[in-house]
């Protein structure tokens, strides 16, 4: 892995994100895979200090993360925007219990998208999260993303926040197909 100072955050943001999560003492992660999260998923899966779970549907991660906090671990959930729609009722658990929640959501259906079926949920992602009571932050550049996740981790784990960080599709680049 490149040293932090050598990084080009427009490309190397997943590695920087991993360092940011480790610095925030995140010890638990659940995911439904997304191409945009590939590097981060691999880094966390390879880290023996981090417990990880592959999910069948994203709402499972919301309940698991709540349980992890009840047991004393800081958890993060990785998913793509289509998965946000699967989470809505389960989000009542961290919202009502005021349990720290950090979701990193890679966006589809909003920029250079080739699959029209991704567009409806892409359009609904932010509104759906805000409707159930989750705070939404958006990053359009790698530098922004790292700053936003650093402070989102503070707001989640130290201020009992339920926070989703949306990673813009413009930053992710066009899906290779």
């Amino acid at each position, binding site marked *: 892995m490149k040293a932090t100072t050598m990084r080009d955050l427009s490309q190397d943001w997943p590695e920087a994100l991993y360092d940011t999560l480790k610095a925030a003492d995140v010890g638990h992660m659940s995911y439904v895979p997304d191409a945009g999260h590939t590097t981060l998923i691999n880094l966390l899966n390879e880290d023996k200090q981090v417990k990880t779970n592959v999910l069948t549907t994203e709402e499972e991660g919301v309940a698991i993360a709540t349980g992890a906090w009840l047991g004393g671990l800081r958890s993060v959930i990785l998913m793509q925007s289509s998965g946000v729609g699967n989470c809505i*009722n*389960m989000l009542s658990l961290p919202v009502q219990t005021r349990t720290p929640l950090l979701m990193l959501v890679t966006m589809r259906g909003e920029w250079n998208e080739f699959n029209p079926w991704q567009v409806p949920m892409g359009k609904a992602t932010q509104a759906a999260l805000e409707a159930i009571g989750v705070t939404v932050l958006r990053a359009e550049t790698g530098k922004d993303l790292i700053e936003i996740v650093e402070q989102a981790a503070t707001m989640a784990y130290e201020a009992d926040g339920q926070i989703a960080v949306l990673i813009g599709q413009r930053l992710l680049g066009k899906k290779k197909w």
Partner: protein
Amino acid sequence: MDRRAAVAKLLEARDGALVVTGLGSPSYNVHAHADTDNNYYLWGAMGGAALTGLGIAQAQTAKRVMVITGDGEMLMAFGAFATIAVAAPKNLDIIVLDNQHFGETGMQDSHTGMGIDLSEIAKASGFSETRVIRDLDQVDQLCRDLTKPASGPRLFVLKIEAKNLPRSLPPRDATYIKTRFRSHLGLAPC
């Protein structure tokens, strides 16, 4: 089988286990036995009980976690059979109080009364031990078996009478229950 008698036996033998309850009657049954700091009651988030238990089990590997939930709640978490089996915690036991009905909403028939066997699904998913339990003597045997170390997640289906008993309501303040449970584990409120 009487559900409260079965739950009482399990809780008397819990031996420090952390308990998570699914919304509705399982929460009422556990509360009716004793309202203790190491109970985490769900009042909503249907489909979340077993997975909340998984998160606790992964964070608290030295403690045993017992999820007590209903057939309808577990049916809504069908994917959880796969996720929990793959996660393979050795300290997570799931007890399904199976009355084969959606008891809270008018006693409509559930899938478990129409041929779906949750213990077989857990077994096929890779749970280390699964069983259907039909009377209180078998619950006594289960209580003894639960004290033995497990090689992976276990799931037991308790076939119970479909009756709505007088409710015993746990506190509905979700932050209170969270903080009380975490304090039991020596964790700070926030």
